[in-house]
């Protein structure tokens, strides 16, 4: 119900404001073409090309204080006869100027949790919390998010459905989730932060508490991300606890070689239930991002990403899995607003 109200509110407000003030818009397109080869215990299981993801984005600025974004996510799937799916990923309005350097965001928006809300896919894989489906990258709700003065960090307080952007109506429970996020940059090059999501009840559990701690260190061309992730699901006394971490160093070679390449390594571990033996996995990733063309202000224009991923399972009966992925991403925006 809440999701429907939010969507109707966003669409109505958008139409109303568009009628009052034409404003200015830009559009963007984001396309990911990927080759994937998957092997299980050295046996080739899959080898395919696919257009894994395409986004169409429409940003519109009504006034300096009100702007909006609509993102449509297009993806390949065998679920439908057409071979493709379509989802609304973002649909929100920003109201600025209520508090200095902050905005009130209403609608289908980013989940301000851990690394998920500003994950730029330095590896082809999603970030840990997204990959392990601990939290969705977007959700229906309201947030206050802003910057700490003098560039010392950022914060967000958010009330959302808690079930993510793919779940709507019958799959959404009665209790909204409360999400808080804080990132601090005490000295240049060091970012530390934490997020927590609390939900009293869900469709599959009675209580959900998610927490994440992040750190990012930049030393010259070397950037190291680290994240701890914890999840507690179920009522007091009968809680399932999951935990994991991710460490990811990236080395920018542009200044060393003149070629705009980043070398990336990544190690993830996720244990869905810490009290159960055999359900954990470790995923190691190595690869590079070759920026063939930078977009406006250094953003992605055309990039070739190549990753090798090995997943090792705690379960002794399950052999290791390998995947080699090569992805060409191209992204553009008509003009900055």
């Amino acid at each position, binding site marked *: 119900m809440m999701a429907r109200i939010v969507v109707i509110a966003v669409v109505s407000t958008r139409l109303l404001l568009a009628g009052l003030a034409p404003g200015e818009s830009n559009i963007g397109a984001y396309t990911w073409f990927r080759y994937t080869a998957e092997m299980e215990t050295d046996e080739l299981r899959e080898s395919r090309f696919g257009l894994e993801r395409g986004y169409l984005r429409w940003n519109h600025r009504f006034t300096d204080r009100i702007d909006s974004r609509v993102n449509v996510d297009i993806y390949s799937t065998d679920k439908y006869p057409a071979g493709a799916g379509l989802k609304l990923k973002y649909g929100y309005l920003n109201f600025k100027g209520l508090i200095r*350097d902050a905005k009130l965001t209403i609608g289908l928006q980013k989940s301000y949790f851990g690394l998920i809300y500003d994950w730029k896919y330095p590896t082809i894989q999603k970030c840990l919390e997204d990959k392990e489906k601990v939290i969705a990258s977007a959700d229906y709700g309201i947030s206050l998010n802003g910057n700490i003065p003098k*560039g010392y*960090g950022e914060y967000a307080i958010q009330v959302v459905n808690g079930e993510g952007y793919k779940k709507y109506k019958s799959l959404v429970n009665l209790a909204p989730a409360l999400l808080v996020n804080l990132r601090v940059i005490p000295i*240049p090059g060091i970012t530390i932060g934490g997020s927590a999501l609390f939900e009293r009840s869900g469709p599959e559990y009675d209580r959900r508490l998610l927490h994440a701690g992040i750190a*990012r260190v*930049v*030393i010259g061309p070397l950037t190291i991300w680290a994240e701890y992730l914890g999840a507690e699901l179920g009522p007091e006394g009968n809680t399932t606890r999951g935990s994991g971490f991710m460490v990811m160093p990236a080395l920018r070679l542009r200044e060393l070689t*003149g070629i705009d390449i980043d070398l990336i390594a990544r190690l993830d571990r996720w244990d869905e239930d810490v009290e159960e033996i055999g359900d954990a996995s470790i995923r190691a990733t190595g690869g590079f991002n070759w920026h063939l063309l930078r977009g406006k*202000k*250094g953003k992605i224009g055309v990039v070739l990403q190549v990753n090798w991923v090995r997943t090792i399972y705690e379960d002794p009966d399950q052999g290791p899995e390998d995947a080699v992925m090569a992805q060409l991403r191209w992204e553009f925006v008509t003009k900055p607003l």
Partner: protein
Amino acid sequence: MKGILGLTIILTLAWLPTTGADLTLTGSTTVFPIIQAAAEEFMAKHPEVDITVRGGGSGVGIAALIDGICDIAMASRPMKTKEIKRARADGINPCETVIARDGLVIVVHPANPITSISTETLREIYTGKINSWKDVGGEGGTIVVISRDVASGTFEVFKKMVLKGKRVRADALMLASNKAVAQTVAQTPGAIGYIGLGYLSPHLKALKVDGVMPDAETISSGKYRLARPLFLYTNGKPRGLAKRFIDFILSPSGQKIVKETGYLPVR
């Protein structure tokens, strides 16, 4: 521990920009003429030094500093909180140096009989409420509104001081540099635009704003309200060649260049 320290030193040294030039400056087209003239004089005094100066706008310069592809960003507006945050997150500590002062000059074609305009009328022209020169005391004809694009610091300052945050009308011609605005207004009888003081020429007519003509005296005294400082941003306090160059700009010789290029010295 020694290994980590060694790795840190190697990586930090390796990170120093290698653009071919000894010093690269990128950003504001308002600041550009000062820096270009100063660089030429500095290189004449120090032939062993190679300085590259690129425009693009304040936003582009600041992004280049954050991305490590320039040594000094030129800006005609202060850095925004989100830019400082992004810079700090990426290990860049933006350090600001004011090198000159400038006035935003409202210009029209020399054949235009208008001599003065109020801030409120400017706002109405730029937001689309006034479309004809007749409505502002002119001889009639459509007003051709020329503005800077959104990467421009001059645009941001104009938007803040004149438009009070309101949007520029959709039919305004958004140009990428002060030079382009100056050229277009000089060639278009019905045009109005705004430029940095250094781009004023006999081919343009400067208007009084709220009864005050922009010049060195009115800008210094604060009588002319559309004034602003011009900045250079470095990663941390200027060091080495960047410090030598900035010290030169702030020296009597450098400040003389500031004056000669049409801007106001700060020392």
